Structures are given as structure tokens and as C-alpha cells.
């Protein structure tokens, strides 16, 4: 078996798949090693599908906006898989004056960076989405936000990259990275040793253990989050929704089902049995959150709920960076639960860093060595 490639990517999530695709387009040979048995088995296929700018940390805005302008609208055609990208805006809802304060702060912060986002009142909210409860008194509204299908987007990048000759190997957890003569070169798994000129670690929270072998640590924690999906319902609305207090977020998919995520507040402390098992509280809590804003969905039936881990970075934005002190190493992880919408842009730009050294979008905010003590 061919065990060497110009670039070895560790992690077959949307970042790994998309980076592989953008590198393959540049005729660079790539091997992708995925630890689990399935492509896109982490957050990539467990998230709520938001492709959103509003509410983001200003440091992320240039990248995500660039991706929304230049990549997302063309992905379905480019990949030959319907990624169900819909750009019909994002409503972040509020019911109390305190909510409105939170929303106002987020809006001001984004607007200051030039994003088209504004506060609207309850009636304006219901003009955009008539199904929302009368209790909603205001929202932030960003018309250029949207949503897509994380499953087909991730697998679409995989499919296309594979077509271009990228080698994907699943069930291949990385045990160790090894330098040869001062340069990162070998990737050791339980089956084989792979060799590459450049190595991108894009393995979510697991990246932390993997880069430890070469003395690099990204401060992250794994936080278990939960989502659910309803049966297909008649068409109701197209916006992406969220709330000031993050009770829930989600959208109606092209298929008609509603995909929602939510939080119980216990996420950081959730335990697991190694199977990413749902908690007994999550789905019920999310349903209460949804019904509070969306009484019309009370009778919608939940057909499936699931859990997954986010790789929460210390400062809540990702690390997408070359690691110069370990020649050959690149890292893209710590996306902190909002990595899906930004993924194509991030992958495109890290592929540029790997291949040419310079990205289209300034990525200095995502450097691996930015973390400092507070005093």
C-alpha cells in the first residue's frame, strides 16, 4: 500500500475532507487518516447546520464572511452533492429586556466589523417568521446568514476529494507523530507508518493528544452537546434561528424536518461511555426551549436525538495555523462548536498555507501560540 503523500491529514471531518479537496485541486497528493470507522463522525455530522456570521467573535468574521461570499453558494455544484445551502438570514431571538441587551451587544460588535446585522422588534420578527411566539419581543437579524446540511456537505467534500485521488483510510487512529532529522515526517498508527512532507492535524479535541507527541498543546476541552431532529413537516420557514441565551438553535431543512440543538447547562460536566451516548435530559430540555419560542411545533414529532463533542478552545475560536517550531506541522482544531459554517473557508485557507505559504484571508488571529496568562 502507498503510505506516503505530500500531505497527511489527520482527521476525516469536514476540515480534513475539505482541506484534502482543496489540496487535491492543486494536484497535491494527500492521505487522510480518520480514527473512527466513519468519515465525518465527529462534530461535522452532529451539528445544527448553521452557516452564520452574526453572533461570532469578530476575529472569525473575515474568514466566515469570505467563505459565505466565495465558497458556500457554489458548493453544491462544485461537489456534485446537494449541500442544501440556504441563505435566508438568521434570527437570534429575545423574550426579555435582558435578552435584548445581550443581542444588542452582539449586534454592535458585529456591525462594528461591517456585518449587515441589526436589531428588530417583535412584530418585525413575526413578519419574517410568523410562527414565532408573541413572547418574542425582539431579535438580531442578519440577512446574509443561512444554513446547510452538515451531513451532505461533509460527505460531499469527501466524495469529491476521493474522486480527485485523495486516499482516505478510516479506523486508523494515530498513535504517534515522529520527527526525522528535525522535521515532522512519520505518522504512526496501529497498522502502519505513514510519511508526508506536511502534516495537518484536524482531529477535533483528539488533536490535543496527537500533537502532544511533538510537544505542542492547544488548550481545549471536550464538551458534550446534543441535537435532535423532527419528522418531515410542511414547509414553514427558511431562516436559521437562535436565542439570546442559547436555549436552542436550528432550522427547517430542505427535507422538511427541523434540526435543533440545545443546551441543558450541564454540557461541560456530561459524562460518556465512549459511545457519545445522549443524556436523559437533553432532548426534553431542548424541546421545552423550542416550544417556548415556537408553540406551533408542539406536535412535531422527534424521530432522533444524538450527542457529540465540541472541541472548545480556551478563547472560543479555533486554531488554524502553521506550527513553525515543528517544521511540517499544521493544526486546524478548536472550532468550539461553530466550525461548520466556517469550515470551507478555513479549509481553503489552510490548504493555501500548506501549499503556498500565504492564505487569501489573514489568519493571524488563529495562531497556535496566541494563548497567554491573564495577568
Amino acid at each position, binding site marked *: 500500500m502507498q503510505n506516503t503523500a505530500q500531505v497527511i491529514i489527520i482527521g476525516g471531518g469536514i476540515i480534513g475532507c475539505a482541506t484534502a479537496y482543496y489540496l487535491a485541486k492543486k494536484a497535491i497528493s494527500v492521505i487522510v487518516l480518520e480514527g473512527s470507522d466513519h468519515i465525518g463522525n465527529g462534530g461535522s455530522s452532529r451539528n445544527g447546520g448553521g452557516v452564520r456570521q452574526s453572533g461570532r467573535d469578530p476575529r472569525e468574521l473575515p474568514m466566515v464572511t469570505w467563505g459565505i461570499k466565495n465558497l458556500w453558494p457554489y458548493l453544491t455544484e462544485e461537489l456534485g452533492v446537494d449541500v442544501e445551502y440556504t441563505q435566508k438570514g438568521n434570527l437570534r431571538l429575545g423574550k426579555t429586556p435582558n435578552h435584548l441587551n445581550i443581542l444588542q451587544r452582539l449586534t454592535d460588535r458585529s456591525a462594528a466589523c461591517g456585518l449587515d446585522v441589526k436589531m428588530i422588534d417583535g412584530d418585525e420578527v413575526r413578519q419574517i417568521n410568523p410562527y414565532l411566539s408573541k413572547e418574542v419581543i425582539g431579535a438580531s437579524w442578519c440577512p446574509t446568514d443561512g444554513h446547510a446540511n452538515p451531513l451532505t456537505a461533509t460527505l460531499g467534500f469527501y466524495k469529491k476529494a476521493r474522486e480527485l485521488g485523495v486516499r482516505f483510510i478510516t479506523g486508523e487512529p494515530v498513535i504517534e507523530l515522529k520527527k526525522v532529522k528535525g522535521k515532522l515526517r512519520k505518522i504512526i498508527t496501529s497498522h502502519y507508518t505513514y510519511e508526508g512532507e506536511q502534516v495537518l492535524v484536524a482531529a477535533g479535541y483528539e488533536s490535543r493528544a496527537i500533537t502532544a507527541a511533538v510537544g505542542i498543546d492547544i488548550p481545549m476541552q471536550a464538551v458534550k452537546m446534543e441535537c435532535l431532529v423532527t*419528522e*418531515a*413537516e*410542511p414547509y414553514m420557514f427558511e431562516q436559521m434561528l437562535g436565542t439570546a441565551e442559547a436555549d436552542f438553535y436550528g432550522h427547517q431543512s430542505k427535507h*422538511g424536518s427541523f434540526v435543533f440543538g440545545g443546551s441543558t447547562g450541564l454540557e461541560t460536566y456530561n459524562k460518556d461511555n465512549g459511545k457519545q451516548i445522549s443524556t436523559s435530559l437533553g432532548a426534553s430540555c431542548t424541546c421545552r426551549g423550542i416550544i417556548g419560542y415556537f408553540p406551533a411545533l408542539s*406536535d412535531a*414529532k422527534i424521530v432522533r436525538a444524538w450527542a457529540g463533542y465540541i472541541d472548545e478552545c480556551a478563547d472560543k475560536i479555533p486554531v488554524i495555523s502553521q506550527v513553525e517550531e515543528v517544521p511540517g506541522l499544521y493544526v486546524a482544531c478548536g472550532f468550539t462548536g461553530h466550525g461548520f459554517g466556517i469550515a470551507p473557508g478555513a479549509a481553503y485557507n489552510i490548504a493555501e498555507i500548506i501549499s503556498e505559504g500565504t492564505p487569501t484571508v489573514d489568519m493571524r488571529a488563529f495562531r497556535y501560540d496566541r494563548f497567554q496568562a491573564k495577568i
Partner: protein
Amino acid sequence: MERIREHPILGEPEKGKTVKFTFDGKEIEGYEGEPIAVALKAAGVMVHRYTKKEHKPRGIFCAIGRCTDCVMVVDGKPNIRTCVTPLAEGMKVQTQYAVSAKEDHVS
């Protein structure tokens, strides 16, 4: 389809009181508490819904609430598993087209 009046092993089926309900506006009688699908079956109704993509008819398939093929619009709510939902007086049962009672929702 006929109801079994007397069974060689089970004798006469135990049924509750009769109730009236409507199927697509037409009044039908059934027994209270029996699955809606059974009352429809006894009345000769075979088609419970038409599917979303192909507009194909579906009816009872597993009869125990697992396959979800027999879903209909019941009292205005779509996707009700009629094989496990008890019949009640005055229920409004409608053929389901895709996910609603309106034919134009079939794409």
C-alpha cells in the same frame, strides 16, 4: 374487509361501544378504542396516504406501530400512526399527502 363475527378458537371478539368518525369527510362507524387502522380496514379503506416524492399509495404494513407506513392526518395532525392510535368518537381522519391533508403538498 369483513370483521370476524365468530372465531373457532377465540369466540366472539370483545369490542367496546360503536363510535362515529369521519374519513375524508365520510362518516364511518368503528369500535371505541380499537386502532383507527382497524376501523378503516373494516370499512374497506386500503389507502392511508400518498408519499411525498413518488406520490405512491401506502396502507397498513406492520400493524404494530413500527413501520410508520399507515400514518394519516388525524384531527389535523399529520404522521399519526393509525395502527396504534385508539379510535374515539368524532375523530377526523384524513388521507395524508406527503406530510399534510392537502394534495398540493405532494411534490
